[in-house]
């Protein structure tokens, strides 16, 4: 699978990338401030709803229904959208999707397009694929624009420039935005105004827009984009041609299902009761908005994910980022350490499944399994359980001779009572670990002392002190065996 030139390298090593990130004080501060703010807002917004757990269960059930009959719902969606004047295209992978989008744009004769922030187009590396064909794509979401102008990579699903603070953003604008005012300050209002003026010109000039979609309704053939800034609304209404790249997992069966997700998404994502802008469209509305409407349905590995009974729940994801904001690992590394398009806990379960675990072998281990992600997930994806399963797949798919040997040896010792007792007694040798400078425990002792091994294991104390016949009641042994 291709991930665009900026997105993917073969099997990025999370531990090494994360080690770089944890030592970047600026990055750590930026991400800590941002995630703790969103976290607190989410907790308030979710706390307002007494039926949150029921909503969450409904969200999971609706997505599961759509995913388990995806063939039917996709065809229903296509028929409904086509009946309302949309053109529906099917893309097996990134290369096909990029080619379809590029041909649609080329057919209009335009060389510049405006974009609504979209994870699907990020995943397929659309911007660089278009650039290779001489088409310039302008990101219009403020954070996405900051990333694009800074020749940077997104580090968060919802707030791609979360790793930047306002002083850094000001520098990027002054350096890269030709129409930035000379006296630009780092006040949020001033930065937003500069971006607004810059973008307004693009909105009025460009005749083609590219978007993703948060939801696709099978029943009606409608697409929905939720956003906060209004840039999406501009892109979705002003141009003549609109191309939307939609992952096939975005389907929900019926229009009514949006009721559930339009409560779950904003409260989980930004801690708001409602998204400031929900744009919902169905094909073409004559005389109003884009008159050429294209929908590219993207597989790009999703069908393979569906095959895995446990792992497929990751496809329920509605890209809210609540798991990133609450993750103690993400909070200390930011998104770049995860290598792929999708950072944080959801990335650690989604990326290995989409690209193959051999190309993301360290991601399933990028978690302490603390369970915070599962707790906040609005569609109840059991991320820790999927991670554990993917760890198994990762070990199977890649070569870890040393770890294999250690765990095999431990397994052998643990399967025999006397072998295990011997192993426990040998733990005392840990006292001499320092003298031998054991390499495998160096990552432990770099930051922590080793525990002092006891004089005897617990079971030796038990046998000596408790496991003795007592006045006629006979031996207290039970559960013998090897």
């Amino acid at each position: 699978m291709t991930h665009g030139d900026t997105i993917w390298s073969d099997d990025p090593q999370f531990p090494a990338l994360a080690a770089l990130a944890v030592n970047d004080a600026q990055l750590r501060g930026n991400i800590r401030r941002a995630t703790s703010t969103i976290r607190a807002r989410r907790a308030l917004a979710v706390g307002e709803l007494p039926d949150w757990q029921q909503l969450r269960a409904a969200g999971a059930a609706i997505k599961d229904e759509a995913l388990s009959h995806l063939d039917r719902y996709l065809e229903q969606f296509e028929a409904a959208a086509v009946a309302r004047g949309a053109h529906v295209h099917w893309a097996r992978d990134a290369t096909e999707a990029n080619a379809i989008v590029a041909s649609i744009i080329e057919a209009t004769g335009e060389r510049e397009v405006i974009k609504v922030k979209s994870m699907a187009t990020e995943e397929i590396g659309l911007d660089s694929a278009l650039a290779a064909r001489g088409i310039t794509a302008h990101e219009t979401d403020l954070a996405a624009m900051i990333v694009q102008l800074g020749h940077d990579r997104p580090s968060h699903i919802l707030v791609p420039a979360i790793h930047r603070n306002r002083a850094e953003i000001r520098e990027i604008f002054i350096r890269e935005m030709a129409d930035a005012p000379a006296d630009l300050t780092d006040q949020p209002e001033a930065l937003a105004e500069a971006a607004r003026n810059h973008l307004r010109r693009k909105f009025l000039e460009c005749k083609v827009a590219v978007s993703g979609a948060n939801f696709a309704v099978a029943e009606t053939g409608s697409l929905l984009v939720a956003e906060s800034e209004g840039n999406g609304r501009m892109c979705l209404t002003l141009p003549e041609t609109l191309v939307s790249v939609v992952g096939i997992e975005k389907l929900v069966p019926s229009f009514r299902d949006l009721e559930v997700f339009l409560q779950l998404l904003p409260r989980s994502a930004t801690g708001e009761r409602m998204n400031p802008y929900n744009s919902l469209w169905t094909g073409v509305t004559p005389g109003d908005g884009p008159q050429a409407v294209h929908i590219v349905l993207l597989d790009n590995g999703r069908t393979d994910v569906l095959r895995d009974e446990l792992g497929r729940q990751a496809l329920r994801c509605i890209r809210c980022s609540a798991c990133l904001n609450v993750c103690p690992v993400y909070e200390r590394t930011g998104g770049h350490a995860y290598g792929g398009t999708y950072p944080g806990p959801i990335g650690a379960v989604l990326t290995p499944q989409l690209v193959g675990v051999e190309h993301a072998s360290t991601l399933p281990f990028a978690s302490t399994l603390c369970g915070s992600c599962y707790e906040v997930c609005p569609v109840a994806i059991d991320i820790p359980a999927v991670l554990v399963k993917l760890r198994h797949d990762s070990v199977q798919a890649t070569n870890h001779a040393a770890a294999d040997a250690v765990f095999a040896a431990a397994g052998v010792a643990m399967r025999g009572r006397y072998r295990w007792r011997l192993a426990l007694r040998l733990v005392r040798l840990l006292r001499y670990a320092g003298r031998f400078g054991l390499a495998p425990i160096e990552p432990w002792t770099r930051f922590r002392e080793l525990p002092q091994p006891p004089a005897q294991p617990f079971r030796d104390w038990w046998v000596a002190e408790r496991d003795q016949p007592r006045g006629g009641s006979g031996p207290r042994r039970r559960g013998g065996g090897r």
Partner: protein
Amino acid sequence: MKIALFVTCLVDALFPDVGRATVNVLERLGHEVEFPLAQTCCGQMHTNSGYRQPALVRRFVNQFESYDAVVVPSASCAASIRHQHPVIARAAGDERLARSSELLAGRVYELSQLLLDVLGAEDVGAYFPHRVTYHPTCHSVRSLDVDDRPLRLLRSVRGIELVGLPGSEECCGFGGTFAVKNPDVSAAMLADKMTAVLETGAEVLCAGDRSCLMHIGGGLQRIRAGVRTLHLAEILASVDGGDGPAGIGSRSGGGVRA
């Protein structure tokens, strides 16, 4: 009531004081404790590292299925037994083992759950005149839902001065092999946890998982912070005039530099 102790491999090997304390608390409350000697490990370390050991699931079921209640002085191991054992058995195609492990799972209790839910003992008669802060480990709150049970037990300890831990429910960064596979991120999380512990001015950090305490305690020891780490069982086992960790000269929380 006959209670079987599954002591966990970590406690058996490195922290026998926790096992002894668990036995002492239960015996003091008048219960008979048994320790099946063929027990080894629940296999969590294997499972979470990507290696499935259905043999260890079978071994656990064989050792413990004849008991009314199994006590585990670790929320993490108790959670693994409850939630992961059936999954591992099923992945190995052993539906019978999966069902047996599910049946047994309902009788496997983390220490605070056993004391409060099964034995109804909130005040276990402990005495521990020290300033203590409590870290609710991730698996205890998010996987096993022990909720405030450990705190209720601690509040009933005579002489104790319990102080709240800021950001208590945030992970300490241990995560089993995470601590060595991702040492830098683990250390970054540890640093924040240690800062929170030191802010409380507590002499003792208490938790229900010796594994997390080994990590936080190892970090505190490294900076010579002078804060002891004690398992919940060790505080509950302490009595007035006893030689437990309430007294002076305890070895718990000590360490060697490698």
